[in-house]
């Protein structure tokens, strides 16, 4: 085993160590915190590159190396954890460390004036460590542990500005919504454990993702008629649904934008939310496991669920994104939608298809978020796109890089990475034998993506700057001069340099996975990549590429026609779409009322349960105790009454009578001789009379 496999733990450990040290540092040690975080991330990045290099050019059988170790013992069993180095891990490691490093650097500029700068880097490092732990884990338990820690840091960072009630509420919402999925994941995990006796993914043939364990799980049928593998797969997928913001658990992700923008870029766009997709990719063998009997069936039940959830999410979130006005919320819904694409890709095309979009998306979405951060920074913490406009000239670097990111996300043909990775998904969806609908969903989503990104860019960067007008109207005209000094400005180099680097990657990464040279796909599958330009020109592929390109152009054109042609003049103007279809726009703007629906059902139900539990306690259980108390007291009273009025009173009465009798008798013996003699005389007389009478008879 080579050095890098043996020491892969260092990759997550270094940021964790940095987090631990920073946690002990004082608030004023800003430079120390930033240096430590960036330094540890740089070393992790270098190690990740080393790990990546190690996996290059290896064939399938030797491409995966694991290191397992015992953690603790229960009964006679040892619970083992471990890490794995395979192409999936290595690709994610490089992506996470690289994007993370850039965002760390960017944060130095973005958070420069925050008083909790030190704490911020502590949380960021903790996040990076936990996320890298998710990536290298060779055990579902280790993955789950890091997964939960990632959730914790997400909670901490969304609520970073905890004094804002909305941030505090959003943090709580994020944690609880994802925990809903995590509880299912926990159950799936313990089920998997009991089925296979191990939680290690790969363990020289004894792991739970290896053939013997999978075969056993497929053969086992539960009481609901599902194969055990399907049941476990669906429970694990529920965890992924929570983390990756898939419908119906997507509600937390847009609210998570309350956190600082670098956090949105790193956690809620590039890495953590993709962890759900990564998890499905990691347990893909389990999801795809099927019985030998139905080897001919096109797809497993678990994968079909993944596909449908992904397809629905892709369209659902894209529709909402169309009508949002907060620059970050548009991107957040876009993220949800793109995560849906990844799930769709995993469902219809396998690991390589979904993961390729994950990697390209991480770069261009981080770019977009950081660009949005730069815009927000330049516009003095303004996030409403209606109050921006015309920034193309004021912030040229941000505009140029943002445009690259936008075109990549929209899937502009040939040049941009998003085109190639989305095309892969559409291609796979087109070939999916079960149903053709996911393909149409995907196409419609692509149209919407191009449309809402055009709308956003048109509103933010084109037309005239609309920030003054709003400010002037609000604060009176004599402030107009002052607000002119508050003209948006370009961000410092520490923020724009990472943008430029990411923009470059948003372009070139696509060429690693074109149909002509599917290097990335081959790399993940442990095969050698072939250059074959003919594949690009194969009729099916070409037609599909043309079709999707047309859809993208349609979306771009539609967006430009509605928003670019005649830019908004005032912040209060009606939206282009709103003027055409106000009722549709209202539904989309209010996010299909999902939050309101949950408010009325789940949250009210929970509050009702709490009320019921409390009520039962106070009145039923507590009442029973009180009833016992009163019965006991009543019985005591009864007993007392019996004592006092029956026993005591009778006894007293008896005593009194005896006393009276005694008093009477004693009154007879008063010591007066006359009385005694009188009594004697009377008695004698009586006796005599008696005798006389008696003798006569």
């Amino acid at each position, binding site marked *: 085993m080579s050095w890098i496999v043996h020491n892969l733990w260092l990759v997550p450990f270094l940021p964790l160590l940095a987090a631990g040290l920073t946690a002990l540092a004082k608030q004023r040690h800003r430079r120390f915190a930033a240096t430590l975080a960036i330094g540890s991330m740089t070393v992790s990045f270098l190690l990740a590159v080393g790990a990546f290099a190690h996996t290059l050019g290896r064939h399938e059988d030797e491409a995966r190396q694991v290191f397992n170790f015992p953690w603790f013992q229960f009964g006679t069993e040892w619970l083992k954890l471990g890490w794995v180095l395979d192409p999936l891990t290595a690709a994610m490691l490089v992506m996470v460390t690289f994007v993370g490093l850039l965002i760390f650097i960017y944060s130095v500029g973005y958070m420069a004036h925050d008083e909790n700068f030190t704490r911020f880097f502590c949380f960021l490092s903790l996040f990076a460590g936990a996320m890298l732990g998710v990536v290298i884990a060779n055990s579902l338990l280790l993955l789950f542990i890091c997964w939960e*820690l990632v959730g914790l840091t997400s909670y901490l960072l969304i609520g970073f500005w905890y004094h*804002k009630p909305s*941030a505090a509420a959003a943090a709580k919402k994020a944690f609880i919504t994802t925990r809903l999925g995590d509880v299912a994941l926990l159950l799936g995990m313990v089920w998997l454990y009991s089925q296979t006796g191990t939680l290690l993914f790969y363990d020289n043939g004894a792991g739970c993702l290896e053939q013997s364990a999978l075969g056993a799980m497929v053969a086992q049928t539960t009481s609901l008629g599902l194969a055990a593998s399907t049941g476990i797969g669906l429970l694990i997928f529920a965890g992924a649904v929570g983390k990756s913001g898939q419908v119906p658990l997507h509600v937390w992700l847009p609210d998570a934008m309350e956190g600082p923008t670098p956090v949105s870029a790193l956690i809620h766009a590039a890495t953590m939310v993709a962890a759900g997709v990564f998890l499905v990719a990691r347990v893909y063998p389990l999801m795809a496991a099927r019985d030998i009997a139905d080897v001919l069936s096109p797809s497993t039940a678990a994968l079909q669920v993944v596909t449908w959830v992904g397809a629905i999410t892709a369209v659902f979130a894209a529709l909402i994104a169309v009508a949002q006005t907060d620059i970050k919320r548009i991107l957040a819904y876009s993220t949800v939608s793109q995560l849906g694409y990844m799930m769709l890709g995993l469902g219809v095309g396998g690991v390589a298809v979904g993961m390729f979009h994950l990697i390209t998306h991480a770069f261009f979405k981080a770019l977009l978020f950081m660009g949005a951060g730069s815009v927000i920074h330049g516009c003095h913490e303004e996030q409403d796109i209606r109050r921006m406009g015309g920034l193309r000239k004021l912030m040229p670097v941000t505009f140029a890089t943002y445009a690259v990111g936008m075109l990549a996300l929209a899937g502009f043909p040939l040049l941009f990475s998003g085109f190639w990775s989305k095309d892969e998904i559409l291609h796979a969806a087109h070939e999916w034998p079960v149903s053709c609908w996911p393909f149409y969903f995907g196409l419609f989503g692509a149209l919407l993506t191009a449309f809402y990104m055009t709308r956003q860019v048109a509103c933010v960067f084109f037309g005239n700057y609309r920030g003054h007008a709003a400010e002037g109207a609000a604060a009176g005209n004599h402030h107009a001069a002052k607000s002119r000094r508050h003209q948006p400005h370009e961000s410092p180099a520490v923020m724009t340099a990472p943008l430029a680097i990411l923009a470059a990657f948003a372009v070139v990464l696509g060429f690693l996975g074109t149909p002509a040279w599917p290097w990335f796909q081959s790399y993940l599958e442990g095969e050698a990549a072939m250059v074959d330009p003919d594949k690009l020109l194969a009729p099916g592929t070409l037609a599909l590429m043309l079709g999707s390109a047309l859809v993208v152009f349609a979306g771009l054109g539609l967006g430009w026609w509605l928003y670019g042609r005649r830019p908004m003049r005032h912040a209060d103007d009606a939206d282009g779409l709103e003027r055409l279809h106000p009722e549709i726009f209202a539904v989309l703007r209010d996010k299909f009322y999902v939050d309101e629906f949950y408010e009325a059902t789940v949250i009210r139900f929970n509050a009702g349960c709490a009320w*019921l539990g409390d009520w039962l306690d106070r009145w039923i259980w507590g009442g029973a105790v009180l009833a016992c108390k009163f019965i006991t007291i009543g019985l005591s009273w009864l007993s007392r009454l019996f004592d006092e009025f029956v026993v005591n009173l009778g006894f007293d009465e008896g005593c009194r009578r005896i006393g009276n009798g005694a008093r009477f008798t004693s009154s007879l013996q008063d010591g007066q001789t006359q009385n005694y003699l009188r009594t004697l005389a009377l008695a004698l007389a009586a006796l005599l009379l008696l005798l006389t009478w008696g003798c006569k008879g």
Partner: protein
Amino acid sequence: MNDFPAITGLTLLPLIGGGLLLGLGADHKTLARRLALGVSALALALAVTLAVNFNPSSGGLQFVQRLSWVPGLGVDYFVGVDGLGLLMVLLTALVVPLALLASGRITERVPLYCALVLLLQAGLFGTFTAQNFFHWFLFWELSLVPAFFLIKLWGGPDRGPAATQFFVYTMVGSVAMLLSFLAIFLATGKFNFTDLAELSQTGQLDASLAAKLNWTSLSPAALKLVIFGGVFLGLAVKVPVMPFHTWLPTAYAEAPSPVTMLLTGLMSKMGVYGFLRILVPLFAAEMRAVITPLLWLAVITIVASAAAAFAQRDLKRMLAYSSINHLGYCLLGIFVAVKLTGADPKLAVEKAAVLDGVLLQMFNHGLTAATLFCFVGLLEQRSGGLRGLNDFGGVRKVAPVFAGLMGISVFASLGLPGLNGFIGEFLIFKGAFPLVTWATALAALGLLITAVFLLTLLQRVFQGPLNPKWSAFPDLTTAERWIVAPAVALMFLIGVYPQPVLHLLNATVLQFVTKLMS
């Protein structure tokens, strides 16, 4: 070490300390505090020495001391610990000094207070080490008396009714248990737990009960079920199992915070300990006979208490319900472990996991809940007795260290991986899910609701805009940091590397499993 009567010494130490303190005048406050702390520190040292000398590869009783006491009545002085007892002794030795250190707000009759705390500790040590029902029950009741006075004399405004309810409720349970044991004694003439367990294992217990108590005109099975019911009631009140829990929220809320630490951290463990030490070895068959209702009780305890916690507006009452919820997992684990029998080796693995989880959960809950109540005490100290959920707000801004350390404890309580609570819950769920899937799946709801109300607690107290009333809220002082630091460090330690603790338990757990298989 084996010749030295270590356990007797351990129990005598706080007993003597408490006795000395009782004789101390009310003015010697500092002396009393120091003396009590010294005694509890010595006890901690002794308990740690026990743990170091404990042989983890043997599941039987160790450090045994057995003297005949009243031979005619089968009463021996019989003490010893296995892994379970040792764990509880360690927990007791750990939480009592913590509670004493957190007693800064107690300023009246300090020597008496310290004396009662030490007497309570003696009662707990005695309960966790006694192997003969006679003095086990003495200690069981002995611990109740100081607890009663601690609530009654130093508690909140409603302390009178709370203390009375606590005492009477527990007493009713104890009487039921005593009657059951008298019946057993009448039938067998034995009081030693080990002897009784053996009799139960061989079936002789049932036979002698049927022979000696035939005048009750109950069938042998029904008779034993009645006896089981008495013991169950005594333990269920103590844990508590819903619906025998109504004394708990009031008692926890009215007791001063350090006493609540003792109540939740230690006294609630007496109940669970009793389940494992008495109920499972003696009445496994009866538990199996009514296992479905028992499982329902556990599930209801878990879910309903979590839901009730969410409805509370008083931090102490909220954490009190949370405490019931956490012990519900222990009960679930115990019932699940008892349910199935057979020779399947997979079954043994799951049972070992469950029982290891239960034992660890007992320890973890003791540590975490005590720490949380310690924090609530510190909050009360700063707010002048206020502890409503909505009385604070934004306190993190002025007291970041307070918020951070209490936040860690809260997350330990809701079972965040990396902290202690997770390992126990994971093991319980891991073993319970394959054995009784429906109950485990329902119990998982508790995990969710726990997160809801604990995060609400953090949100209302520490986040949001700073309540201007608390702009001068002091952060933890250095001394206070040192009080809670060991507990928080232990949470991390067990969360990251639980093996040292599990190592002490495994042999005992395996012995339980062997007995539960047939």
